[in-house]
């Protein structure tokens, strides 16, 4: 109850600011918080990255292990994406089985990588029908201060680009880098009081009726999208979000990947 009242007050505050063309941290509507990407932070993981967007802090670790392919794709590697919203990251997170927010987070990140065919899964086949490389992307949220999606997606692609396939450990030979073909980057926007804001802070994320994540590739094509939240949007607003999303993804790709 206490938290609810606080969030109502914060929502009014955020909406009032936006009406006056402002944001709580002084950013412009089209401006991201400071981003940092730290690579290879976990020695035991084949690929890892810690991404900070403002105070939002997400650690992505990728493990690569041989496993059995799915029966319908006997000659393709496997990507499995999972996200944990661990209770250390926010007073709102509870331990227990994944809830719809963590599932959505994992599935949107997964969709971007899959949709862009960023990983050449054909090249992850070790022995057709028997053994393929399984790529486990695990998103570990450490501090939720808004816009987990963009941080997680950036962490995932940064991890994959730097990943080493552990051939030696399993007595195998072959390329040690992952066959990467593209760099999907997510850009999330919210609509508040008719305005479009990129990279929503925690309070902005709560105040917004809807948010849209646009995932785009190096050539500007789209490889995933997700609207979330209880509001409705007009065609023109969505078109604008796509436009901004592609532009912002390009900037992030250029700077951090």
């Amino acid at each position, binding site marked *: 109850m206490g938290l609810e009242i606080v969030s109502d007050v914060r929502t009014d505050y955020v909406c009032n600011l936006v009406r006056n063309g402002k944001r709580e941290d002084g950013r412009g509507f089209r401006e991201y918080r400071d981003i940092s990407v730290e690579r290879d932070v976990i020695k035991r993981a084949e690929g890892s990255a810690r991404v900070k967007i403002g105070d939002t802090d997400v650690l992505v670790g990728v493990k690569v292990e041989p496993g059995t392919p799915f029966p319908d794709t006997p000659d393709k590697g496997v990507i499995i994406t999972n996200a944990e919203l661990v209770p250390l990251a926010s007073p709102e997170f509870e331990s227990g089985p994944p809830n*719809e927010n963590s599932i959505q987070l994992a599935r949107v990140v997964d969709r971007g990588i899959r*949709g862009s065919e960023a990983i050449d899964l054909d090249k992850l086949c070790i022995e057709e029908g028997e053994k393929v490389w399984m790529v486990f992307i695990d998103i570990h949220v450490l501090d939720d201060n808004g816009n987990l999606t963009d941080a997680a997606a950036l962490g995932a692609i940064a991890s994959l680009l730097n990943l080493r396939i552990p051939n030696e450990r399993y007595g195998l030979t072959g390329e040690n880098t992952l066959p990467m073909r593209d760099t999907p980057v997510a850009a999330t926007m919210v609509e508040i009081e008719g305005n479009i804001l990129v990279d929503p802070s925690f309070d902005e994320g709560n105040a917004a009726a809807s948010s849209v994540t646009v995932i785009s590739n190096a050539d500007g094509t789209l490889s*995933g999208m*997700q609207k*979330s939240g209880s509001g409705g949007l007009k065609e023109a607003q969505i078109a604008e979000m*796509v436009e901004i999303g*592609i532009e912002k993804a390009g900037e992030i790709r250029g700077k951090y990947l």
Partner: protein
Amino acid sequence: MKEEIELIKDGKRLDGRGFDELRPIKIEVGVLKRADGSCYLELGDNKVIAAVYGPREMHPRHAQDAKMAVVKFRYNMAPFSTDDRKRPGPDRRSVEISKVCREAFDPVIMRELYPKAGIEVYVELLQSDAGTRTAGINAASIALADAGIPMKDIVSSIAVGKINGEVVLDLNAVEDNNGEADMPIAMIARTNTITALQMDGRLTKEEFERGLKLAMGACHQIYELQRAALVTRYNQNYESKKEER
């Protein structure tokens, strides 16, 4: 890369449809006796049944909202609804779809009228053939109206996708499995307000814009069918009441 399967021949799709053509839609309102509202819907080979319970007391009580009703939406596939048996119960896919579907109705359901109450929407996929969530949203919309839940409008839903390089409406399973992209949307037709949007696969910005327009147009068609089904149902009610008198 997937090997290219020919899904378009002489400007027609394998099931004979044009690029902007919906599969046949069949709607029956009020098909379940115990539920407060219900709807059976077919979209091509999709067969879906939706039931609505409530507004009624929300359980568990700690999940109640003092200001408005809480909507629960459960999208569920029957184990026999797919080629390979689907393990019963919720999986990650159905949890995500349930969330997106619930949010698609948030702008229309007048939840503030029923503080502390729960409104439950259950969507069961009996037979699936791609586009199941859109069929589910269309059916749920009618079941909500049939249950008499106050709504500002009904929600209509359809997917567009890309097959053999062409943007087409309402993919079936063969097209979805071999297609390049899939984008389901939900919309309030009267106000052209989009309440759900997802995309996977790969589209250019131009293809996206064209697809969105195509889907929005189709939502208007579906809206008319939904409306007609409700009108038919309530004319029947009216006629049978007259006879009773």
